[in-house]
């Protein structure tokens, strides 16, 4: 049996990574994510697992790429500025098609921004932060318990699809302690990368016959040694660089297809009181918890409102959002930024119904009252939901 614990989402992510089979961690300190390596540093040596604090954010994700390429489940964790620094190597992991989990505890930006305060400003960066065409999977849990479940799922998806997965939490969620259940590995579904059944001499890391070619551990559990080449350049089936237009197009399209053909497995979302809803709130992460309260309150007054909560932000649940747009009168996207996922929802809704935003990038959580007001009066701009008295306590700005 697993354990009950009182944890914040950072510690929860660390615990869940171990449940999922984490074999290597490398990181660099950054607020508000540092509890992840702090907790792992207490447990990983005891379990005989390598744990490293590297010289910078870039080194830490690169060390993870090294570990995962050789056959070990790896994770790194960071926040805003560190996520920017990791982008190039995140793209390398996409290109090599190696499993990797990158946790980004979103804090206020841009630049150094608000190190100790929550935001959801890295949603688009998670999708398009690294250069070039590439697919990405990004997950967004709404509380510590879900952070445990979603971390395990992040590892599973990464291993199954040879794909880096970004786990987006935020500075508030990551420090909010709640009661959680940490399952034992036996209690959950754990996916390990498929080891090829072909012998090493006939193995190709990018075999044209697969949508997701098996990624051989360099030193397989059965003692076989798979020597092959992985390159961050556009490559052929052997992993060797090529500029052949046919294989280039094929590779990039396959990388997209392995995600778009498997949306059933990758997408995850929640419908909350949506059955008869005329207004749909789209919210994710911490903001979804505020939306839930606002919806309950509005429902008591007979307002037909519900929530669509994507747990998988990328790829976006297009079909589901389209379906909602055909049933409701308006859509409200609530998020702690100036309108990022809003753009994606607008794109998918395609002008069928009006899309409004509750957009706050003030370094504080969106309050239920702000969402409630928006439900009542969608076209009115949502103001910062703090009284003058409350604002005074933050100091500064005079």
């Amino acid at each position, binding site marked *: *049996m*697993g*354990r*009950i614990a009182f944890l914040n989402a950072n510690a929860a992510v660390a615990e869940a990574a171990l449940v999922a089979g984490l074999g*290597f961690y*490398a990181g660099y300190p950054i607020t508000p994510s540092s509890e992840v390596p702090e907790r792992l540093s*207490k*447990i990983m*040596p*005891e*379990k*005989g697992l*390598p744990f*490293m604090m*590297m*010289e910078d954010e*870039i*080194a*830490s994700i*690169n*060390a*993870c*790429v*090294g*570990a*995962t*390429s*050789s056959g070990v489940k*790896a994770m790194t964790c960071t926040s805003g500025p560190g996520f920017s620094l990791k982008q190039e*190597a995140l793209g*390398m992991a996409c290109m*090599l098609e190696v499993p990797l989990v990158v946790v980004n505890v979103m804090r206020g930006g841009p630049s150094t921004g608000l190190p100790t305060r929550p935001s959801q400003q890295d949603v688009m960066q998670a999708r398009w932060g690294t250069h070039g065409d590439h697919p990405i999977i990004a997950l967004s849990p709404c509380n510590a*318990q*879900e952070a445990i*479940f979603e971390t395990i799922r992040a590892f599973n998806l990464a291993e199954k699809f040879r794909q880096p997965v970004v786990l987006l939490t935020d500075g508030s969620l990551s420090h909010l302690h709640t*009661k*959680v*259940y940490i*399952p034992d590995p036996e*209690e*959950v*579904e754990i996916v390990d990368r498929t080891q090829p059944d072909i012998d090493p001499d006939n193995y190709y890391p990018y075999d044209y016959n697969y949508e997701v070619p098996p990624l051989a551990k*360099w*030193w397989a559990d059965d003692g076989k*040694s*798979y*020597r092959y*080449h*992985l*390159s*961050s*350049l556009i490559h052929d089936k052997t992993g*060797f*660089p090529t500029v052949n237009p046919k294989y280039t197009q094929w590779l990039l399209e396959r990388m997209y297809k392995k995600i778009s053909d498997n949306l059933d497995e990758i997408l*995850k*979302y*929640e*419908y*909350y009181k949506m059955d008869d809803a005329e207004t749909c709130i789209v919210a994710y992460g911490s903001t979804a918890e505020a939306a839930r309260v606002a919806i309950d309150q509005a429902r008591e007054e007979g307002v037909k409102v519900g929530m669509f909560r994507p*747990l998988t932000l990328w790829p976006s649940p297009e079909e589901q959002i389209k379906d909602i747009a055909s049933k409701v009168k308006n859509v409200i996207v609530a998020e702690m930024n100036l309108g990022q996922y809003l753009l994606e929802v607008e794109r998918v809704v395609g002008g069928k119904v009006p899309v409004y935003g509750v957009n706050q990038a003030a370094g504080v959580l969106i309050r239920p009252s702000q969402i409630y007001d928006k439900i009542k009066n969608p076209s009115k701009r949502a103001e910062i939901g703090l009284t003058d008295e409350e604002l005074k306590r933050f100091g500064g700005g005079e």
Partner: protein
Amino acid sequence: MAVDYTKYLRMDKMPLYWCPGCGDGIVLKCYLEAIDELGWSKDDCAMVSGIGCAARVTGYVDFHTLHTIHGRAIAVAAGIKMSHPDKHVFVFGGDGDLVHIGGNHLVHACRRNIDVTVVLINNWIYGMTGGQHSCTTPPGAKASTAPRGSYEPTIDVCHMAIGAGAGYVARGFAGDPTRLKKLIKEGLEYKGFALIDVFSPCPINFGRRNRLGDPAKLLEHMKSFLVSSAKAKRMNEDELKGKFITGVLHKDTEKPELTAAYKDLIEKAQASDEYWAKYAKGTLTEDDKYKITGEELKKLYPYDVETPLKEWKKL
């Protein structure tokens, strides 16, 4: 006995990508000879490289190979070595790749003394991108970005590595393959971080701009900067100005190697009866473990979504 190089190379990937007169092939040959003399199995060897001409080596050698992004090969290698301490891990790369953009990783790998052998092909130039000047381009030498000659001072990579704490530091020369092989072999055998800085000619992108397009002439020119460690002992400070000493420059047999140090830490941690040791082993107390019912769990997670829990997929 002659070495069968084809044993170590992916012959289907030939011909090599390098220009005529390039030193990379000589260095690779020395390196393969060293591996062969050590009798190491290809199956136990992993090689990482970044981006650049020298970094293309990983495509040709029949090891576990990883061709990564510019400057980060040593960090990638650290991840592999820490995950597989019993395997041999190497890095091949150029001066622009490993010292200029990737300098921070080099410094800290030296400090950690992690058992990775780095062969640095130092050709004084960014060769692949067309001859831009790097941190090792001699002052006054012309480059595509220094048409009037470089005005920047250079770095002595070996001094830096010694200062940063590398266990084994040597400098070799592509024009002296017999000694180079010995230096590489000693570096491979060394348990800890080994850096072999190899002066190697780039006649196309360094030489031609500096009236040294003839590979033999360029080798002679490079050699004029080099002094053997034996000879250097007899030279005074003034005479050594602007010179680079070859041979084994530093070897520390006392400094602990990183994966060995981590192994000690693991053993201590596992033997300890402190809180976190018990926590990790799951032997804290029986009270630490609860039987939890579906109903109780549902209170913790009241959402209408699937969980990874086998027993209660949907709570």
